[in-house]
């Protein structure tokens, strides 16, 4: 179980959101929604151990994430950046295979898992292509496939559907749903329809440290959605 315990997050030492308490469990597909700048991405980065919490703790099965060695952390979490620039001409297959790093498993197993992820994301035909020569949507699929290859218990995905066309959005969402049967998927998403249709649980972030968590049905009421749209931040 992944538990945020009285967690306060910050960006460059500026507090963003305070006193979060919530638990994520395998078998759940979470959608995190909230207006721009409320701290959704920072929250994911803090959970993944990339940012340090300002206060409180991120606990995974009772262990504080910041104290875990990077390799162990990567076995628990895979993290999809909102934007990931590609700088080196690795092949798609090599890039996706990099998700296997934390496991030190047999090469044959790594290859098998990599091939499966390529297939799952519908990019096996691109396997030999350089990641520098991909379109934005293709590159997004490569990054998602890399996260899948990592086979972590928790997938933290920052706007995974960016750059994807409608057909692939639906396809990838089905893949996430399938993964969330055994693991936990936590996705930052701006598309309320998508969250409503696919996520089992929702975390709604408002200004002034207000938030709601629960199952999709209980959170995504007209009243709450109305509140989300009328939510005005004081960023300063």
């Amino acid at each position: 179980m992944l538990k945020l315990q009285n967690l306060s997050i910050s960006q460059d030492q500026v507090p963003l959101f305070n006193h979060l308490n919530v638990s994520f469990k395998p078998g759940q597909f979470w959608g995190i929604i909230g207006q721009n700048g409320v701290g959704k991405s920072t929250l994911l980065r803090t959970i993944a151990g990339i940012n340090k919490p300002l206060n409180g703790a991120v606990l995974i099965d009772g262990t504080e994430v910041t104290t875990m060695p990077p390799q162990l952390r990567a076995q628990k979490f895979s993290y999809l950046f909102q934007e990931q620039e590609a700088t080196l001409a690795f092949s798609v297959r090599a890039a996706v295979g990099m998700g296997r790093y934390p496991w030190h498993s047999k090469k044959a197993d790594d290859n098998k898992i990599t091939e499966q992820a390529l297939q799952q994301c519908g990019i096996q035909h691109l396997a030999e292509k350089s990641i520098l020569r991909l379109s934005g949507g293709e590159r997004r699929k490569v990054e998602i496939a890399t996260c899948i290859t990592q086979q972590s218990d928790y997938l933290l995905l920052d706007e995974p559907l960016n750059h994807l066309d409608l057909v692939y959005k639906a396809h990838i969402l089905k893949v996430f749903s399938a993964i969330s049967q055994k693991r936990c998927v936590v996705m930052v998403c701006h598309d309320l329809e998508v969250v409503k249709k696919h996520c089992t649980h929702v975390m709604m972030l408002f200004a002034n440290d207000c938030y709601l968590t629960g199952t999709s049905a209980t959170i995504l009421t007209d009243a709450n959605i109305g509140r989300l749209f009328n939510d005005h931040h004081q960023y300063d």
Partner: protein
Amino acid sequence: MGSVHTPLAAVFNSDSEYFEIIWQLRMPRIINAMLVGGSLALAGLLIQNLVKNPLADPYLLGVSGGAATVQLVVIISGIALAQNTLFFFGFLGSLAATLLLLKLSYHGQIKPEKITLNGVVLAFGFAAIISFVLATASGQQVKSMMFWLMGDMSFAQPNLLMPVVILACMLLLMKHHRALDLLARGELFALKSGVNAQRINLIIFTITALLTAMAVAQAGTIGFVGLIIPHLVRLMTGFKHQNLIPMCFLVGACFLVAADTLARTIMSPIQLPVGVFTAMIGVPVFLMLNRKV
């Protein structure tokens, strides 16, 4: 080959004077050129990974300069002339230069643009110190010092320590070849993928300093090998460090032997410093690469 005409048969005849030329002058020099070239190419590969800039090189970023400055001061002041002592002082110098460079360029995380600029400025600083030392040195010392600083193989003595250290470095690097791949794609990317980025960076920068120091102690500051060779090898083998590490060493070794042979023979019997040749090849290649980057 070289300034003296040598019949082939005489090479293997231990009574002939040519035997001595080949086996006691030429062979050690070739082996040294291989070790120095390989070290510099590897150091270039590593420092390009460390600063995330394809135009980095231990010479350009002042790592060689740090080693050379300390070694030069040690030689001039007459403290020590033994090869291994020079290695040690050179290592301190290049380590200090690398540390200084990282310290100046670290703000929460390493900023690649900043590190390159700082490195180039540091390299100038070291060059100035070296010029100062040379300007105040006695006339006799100056010419050989100048040669050494331009990169010259003719002083190099065979040394057993160097191949051993290189081998150990390469084994350590090969052990972490996947982490190096991930790190090359960015610090955060490596971190989120489970790489202990801090530890690997420490390994990279220690090995860079070590290889550079040995190369400088053996042959002075030879530029551009560390810059061009990794690029050539990437074109040949792709971006995986599993291939890059051994191939950079091999190609770097061959390249410097070729450059040194040219330096020795092209104006024979005058021997030119090999650094002149690597720069003559390196400058146009650098400019071409910089246009593409």
